[in-house]
């Protein structure tokens, strides 16, 4: 087994453990490269099927190609797709692009708040109906008690302290200082009512591993990751107003891998193109404590 095989097997094991242990399970799919690899791992684990909802938090400021891509794969792969949003904040135009909120507040409202209330079932969820070919109000309003998230330990400081199975309390709060022990592939699958567990199958992957795996498995990705002649590409995807591309000539997956191997980005954070991180003192600690992924 090579390194990618090992990472794949760890990820598949974790997804299967989650599926066996959590009745109300969902996977967060941000449409980015990491969570798309994670979705691919689910198809590996469950033989082409995805037996739990994929949840996307739609801020309505995502780059349009991302939504097109999401719905195309939903149809092609027969995915149980669900999205949630902060309708109130959007209607009240309490957003950064509308000039009524700073970046962090905007992130908290459109992402963290929307995520929290979509996961606990308080706000409306929209589910893709494969028969009518459109999103409809989801009748399932039960709280998701297991939430699969595609964070990687090497992305930034706070994520490196995560466990594979990481508990969140009733307020969605993560107690970094007191985490469960995790060894011998035994995970925290028991949890008190009202709390939930975040599950991280990609914790051991690096940015390079992600691209190597995309190349090996030929996983479709959004074209925004590639330089299409402008000499720029996105290294991390988010909302259009707060995401900036990096200088790069890489036009395809193998060129991205080659670029990463040169060490060109080794001293530049992967999320450096994400403006909200800077407003959060460089880390994501504040946002993540509030429930951000």
């Amino acid at each position: 087994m090579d390194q990618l095989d090992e990472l794949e097997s760890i990820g598949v094991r974790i997804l299967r453990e989650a599926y066996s242990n959590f009745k109300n399970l969902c996977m967060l799919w941000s449409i980015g490269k990491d969570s798309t690899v994670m979705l691919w791992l689910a198809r590996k684990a469950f033989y082409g099927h995805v037996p739990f909802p994929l949840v996307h938090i739609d801020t309505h400021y995502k780059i349009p190609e991302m939504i097109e891509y999401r719905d195309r794969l939903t149809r092609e792969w027969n995915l149980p797709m669900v999205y949630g949003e902060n309708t109130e904040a959007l209607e009240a135009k309490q957003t950064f692009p509308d000039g009524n909120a700073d970046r962090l507040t905007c992130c908290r409202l459109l992402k963290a708040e929307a995520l929290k209330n979509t996961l606990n079932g308080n706000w409306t969820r929209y589910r893709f109906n494969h028969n009518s070919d459109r999103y409809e109000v989801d009748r399932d309003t039960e709280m998701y008690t297991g939430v699969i998230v595609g964070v990687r330990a090497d992305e930034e400081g706070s994520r490196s302290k995560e466990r594979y199975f990481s508990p969140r309390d009733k307020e969605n709060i993560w107690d970094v200082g007191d985490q469960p022990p995790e060894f011998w592939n035994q995970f925290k699958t028991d949890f008190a009512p009202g709390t939930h567990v975040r599950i991280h199958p990609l914790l051991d992957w690096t940015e390079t591993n992600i691209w190597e795996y995309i190349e090996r498995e030929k996983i479709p990705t959004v074209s925004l990751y590639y330089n299409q002649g402008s000499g720029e590409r996105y290294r991390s995807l988010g909302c259009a107003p707060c995401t900036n591309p990096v200088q790069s000539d890489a036009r395809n997956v193998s060129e991205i891998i080659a670029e990463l191997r040169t060490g060109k980005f080794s001293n530049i954070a992967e999320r450096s193109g994400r403006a909200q991180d800077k407003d959060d003192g460089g880390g994501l600690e504040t946002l993540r404590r509030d429930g951000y992924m």
Partner: protein
Amino acid sequence: MQREQMNIVFTGHVDHGKSTVVGRLLADTGSLPEGKLDQIRRECERNSKPFEYAFLLDALKDEQSQGITIDAARVFFKSSARDYIIIDAPGHIEFLKNMITGAARAECAFLVIDAEEGIQENSRRHGYLLSMLGIRQVCVVVNKMDLVDYSQQVYNRIVRRFTRFLKSINLNDVEFVPVSGREGDNVFHRSSSMSWWKGATVLERLDCFRKAEPLDRMPMRMPVTDIYKFTNYGDSRRIIAGTLETGTFRQGDEVIFYPSGKKSRIKAIESFNTDTVTEVKAGRATGFTMDEQIYLSRGALACRVDQMPPKVGNQLQVSLFWLGREPLVQGKEYFLKTGTTKVRCQLSEINKVIDASSLDSEVRRESVERHEVADCSLALQKTIAFDLVMDLPQTSRFVLVDEYEIAGGGIIRDVDDHRQHEFGEKLIRRQLEWENGIVTELDRMEQYGQRPALILVTGHEDQAEAAKIFAEGLEKKLFSLKKNVYYLGYRSLKYGLDADLKNDPLLQKRRMAVREEHIRRISEISHIMIDAGMFFIVKIDGLDYEERDLIQLLLGTSRMKTIWVGKDITTDIVPDWHIRRPENMDEHMAKVDSIMEEWELMGDIS
């Protein structure tokens, strides 16, 4: 070619110099980012504090937490031999959970001891834990030799005392290295201050550690994670999924599932988006379909028929470490998890608690406190499959769950009860020799819409009549629900199958032997009836925990439920359904449907 990679962990008492040794290793092997060393020296000068190598590690971590690429919990460095990942393992006692989480992933370990302070509580505690975590390659770094004038005598004394301790916990062949992290003696550069030392440096020792032998040459062990049948998605395959812990299997291999002993043959190895797979090796998350469909569930242990079988039993002798806030005590229910099995259990006895704060390891105690290590006996509520640590460490490992938390971990050293063990072996023999017809268990389940089970109706002897009426009522109710059900009355046995069992009311011993044989026979009949797809109802008066356990063992893992009839439960049994007022028959019978569904014996059983 990919360079070899190895995970290592540095452990030891707080302030004994783990960070200094690691910092020195990084600096001397040239593994630090350019200019890092000078930058920190300058910062120290500015703040007029003496430079320490330990700051390097902190500085790297600070930088990481500010959002640049490296993982704060892991530090990477290279020697000429291979790449290393140093896993951060804090020495402070509160961080023991993190130390275990980190160390469990290491292939080899350094344990740092301060030459001046000598062996401390956590030196010993970390020694135990490394031993229990199965890390066999350990090197003790005797640090701060500069503070004891590089004295060979001081060094030898620590080596002597600590070797004796390590031997007592089965850590043999441990190497020692005298170093000074601060001065850089024997870390990367050979020391000129310790000319008496002819052994290896820390880095040389590190490069001598061997990669663990591949697990694929050991006997096959695949704990079953789940059975996948995605019929909703138009997929009719029935896939037995799991991660192969040890061994290898190929398409066509005959496999046997423990503890039930059921067997079948691997028809195809299933995978998504790959070429056809015909062989799987240890470490791979995999799945396969089988020639013959047998009923299986999560927790079964898949093994190859032609290899060493695992052990089965429910009374375990274990060594464990305890991390829970509440102590481990008798009379409380815990969950034991091993592989994919999860089973209720109780602490039946503490044989000894090892006290890390003194060298005395023979303490008698009623409970195991947080951060203690102990040898104990555990009683499980049902029979499971596992290996003993001396046979196959990977599948001898378990954790204990207290309420919602993983509160301890350990290794299984022995199966306690020889009678249980003997029955277990017989059971597997029976299963191996069992002749199956063409109609399978699953076929029957599908046709009858029920998952066969033994339903034991019991109660105090005074309530024998009430229990009998209830059992008959239950049979009638299930029959009216069009279920395949049979009630076997005691008298039907007494003058038939049990006619040779002569009871002598005066001989207590004889009576017990007769009862045990009676129960054994009932268990054997139940096994046949369950195989025939039935709900089999039997009434046994005054059934206790041990007898229930024996029946469970003889049945294998087939389903069994107990119903206690009568107001007070007068034995130590914990029934699945307690009928407090047997006279309210209609009320109880109205619930049968939903209770059977709750037990997953009827309703949606796919």
